[in-house]
């Protein structure tokens, strides 16, 4: 009797062990497959960006033309070279063009160069920009981008976080007061989000900077920047009020409307009514019966919002003269500065891939119905 129980418990233990190792194997396999597929996606995306940013190689022609023209003009205008004969001069021009083309790598065929770009990009070796320099004079793409990153994050990060949490919590409150005056007002105001942030920005500048003279027109800090870090922060805050308000103002109503509708759908679930019947207070109902089951959606939205900060907003930055990433990339596109464009894209691609990868595991953590790698 005892023996058979022992055998049984042994069997049970080995079974548990087996299932644990099975789970581990399944996880491992899933992770590997997922990583490979995501990596392939990133490679394809980045290669397409390289092709597009170079206009399939046509940018080479443009650059070659620019080099040819620039050097011919420079040589023919240089008074020191007046003495040379026409042949000598054209030889000199050809020579300089060759050197410049070699410097930029334009002497090799584009098909091969695109692969080098890809390889470098995937290793996050962004190299040097073609023409652009960072504000401190560096030609390294890394410096050009890193220099703009803090200013982008501080403005868009803060305003988007504020926007996200305000709208989720206001929406939750509204969904419980469906049909109230505020609810109707929010719904009625939601079309205001059709206008982009810079549109509101222009009006805010007009009112608060031009007419009332309360706040600065644009820029990130006062000129010259205060030395004291506290005053610097204060000045930064003052400069952030208008751009942040325009960013929030332009999407708050639509965002609340969205989340409110979302929460309304989930508050009509039977288990929410059941929770109400059970006499739970409304805070517990909101927390455990509405927010908890919808957590995967909220987390997804939040994660995508975070990586969406990468890139900034071109026109809003321009309107407020804000030194953000959006303007940098915009300038890079205008100047065919492919290394900068590619760098910005690959960082976004990696961020997206990592987020998607992590989200799968987060889902499995917050929702018991989701099993990583399960069918």
């Amino acid at each position: 009797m005892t023996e058979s129980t022992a055998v049984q418990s042994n069997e049970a233990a080995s079974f548990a062990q087996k299932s644990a190792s099975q789970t581990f194997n399944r996880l491992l396999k899933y992770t590997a497959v997922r990583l490979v597929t995501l990596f392939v996606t990133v490679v394809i995306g980045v290669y397409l960006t390289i092709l597009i940013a170079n206009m399939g190689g046509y940018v080479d022609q443009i650059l070659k033309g620019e080099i040819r023209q620039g050097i011919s003009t420079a040589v023919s205008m240089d008074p020191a070279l007046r003495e040379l004969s026409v042949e000598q001069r054209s030889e000199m021009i050809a020579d300089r063009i060759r050197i410049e083309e070699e410097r930029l790598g334009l002497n090799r065929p584009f098909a091969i160069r695109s692969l080098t770009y890809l390889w470098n990009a995937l290793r996050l070796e962004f190299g040097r920009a073609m023409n652009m320099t960072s504000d401190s004079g560096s030609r390294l793409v890394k410096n050009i981008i890193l220099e703009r990153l803090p200013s982008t994050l501080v403005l868009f990060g803060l305003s988007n976080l504020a926007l996200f949490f305000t709208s989720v919590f206001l929406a939750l409150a509204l969904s419980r007061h469906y049909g109230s005056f505020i609810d109707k007002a929010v719904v009625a105001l939601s079309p205001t989000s059709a206008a982009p942030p810079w549109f509101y920005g222009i009006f805010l500048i007009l009112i608060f900077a031009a007419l009332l003279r309360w706040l600065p027109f644009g820029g990130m800090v006062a000129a010259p920047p205060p030395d004291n870090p506290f005053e610097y922060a204060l000045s930064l805050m003052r400069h952030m009020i208008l751009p942040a308000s325009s960013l929030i103002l332009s999407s708050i109503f639509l965002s609340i409307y969205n989340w409110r509708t979302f929460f309304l759908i989930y508050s009509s679930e039977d288990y929410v009514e059941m929770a109400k019947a059970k006499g739970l207070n409304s805070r517990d109902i909101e927390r455990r019966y509405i927010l908890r089951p919808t957590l995967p959606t909220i987390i997804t939205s939040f994660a995508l919002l975070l990586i969406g900060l990468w890139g900034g907003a071109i026109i809003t930055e321009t309107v407020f003269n804000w030194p953000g990433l959006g303007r940098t990339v915009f300038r890079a596109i205008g100047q065919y500065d492919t290394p900068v464009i590619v760098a910005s894209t690959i960082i976004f691609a990696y961020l997206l891939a990592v987020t998607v990868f992590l989200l799968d595991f987060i889902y499995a953590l917050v929702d018991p119905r989701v099993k990583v790698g399960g069918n």
Partner: protein
Amino acid sequence: MAEKNLLTIKDLVLYFRTSKGAVKAVDKVNFELGFREAVVVLGESGCGKTSLAKALLRLLPRNVEAYSGSIVLDGLDTMALNDEEYRQQIRWVRMSLVPQAAMNSLNPVLRVGDQVAEPMMVHHGVKKEEALEQAKKMFQHVGVPADFLTRYAFELSGGMRQRVAIAMSLVTAPSLIVLDEPTSALDVLTQANIFNVLKRIKKELEISFILITHDIATSSELADRVAVMYAGQIIESSDAMGFFTEPLHPYSQMLMASVPRLRGDKEPIFITGQPPSLLNPPTGCRFADRCPQRFGKCDQEPPVFEKEGRLVKCWLYE
């Protein structure tokens, strides 16, 4: 005056607002229920049975047009309570609910044990361990293995979920449980199982039931009394023995005759026509249009007549 009834409902009204006008889902319902008694509320779909359950538990949708009457439960006038008092004193303390669709009435992302234990923690302020202990006891009562406490709803079969829902309704030991079609989504074997569970609980825990169903055959097992609902009103209310052997109201008679029987040559009879719209119910007897025994007086609304201690709303018993 000592209260002899657990529950007394007088003139309970619940109207819903729609674009076409008010839907009179529960229209002046009167109703009494004693201690340790099970009453079955019978009726076909759309006659206001579920609305009655909602009105009892004050689980009102947003489009309520009218909600009035008096509900006295355990000597406490519930209609006089505000929402917060109602939540603290009635919900799951005196009255609990087993919902119609137990499939969706469990939160998919919380363990069922926690959900069953939750009302204990909310209403009796006990610690989680204690509440779970109580939940475990209730699981035993309804025949769910104790290790199911840590499972999630999606890991349970339909029958098990319904048992969990019943365990949940029992956990705070309320004096009244409203069962809103607790078995209508289950197969016959599971239905029989659940009814056995309910019968046992009624004996062991001395709880009163309001069982709302359209299933005459299975409900007869549990009923002490029967109330028949038609078009938002209770048209007959009587003891179970009397009702199942000799229903009084023509509608009840036809309802009983519609139950198929294995033996006997009687064909099951169906009632022709549809119940009247609850938007504009007829002014007279609401069943008159479909009634084979109608006569002149049926154009006026019948009062409730008493016959041998049974109540029936029909002119035939004047």
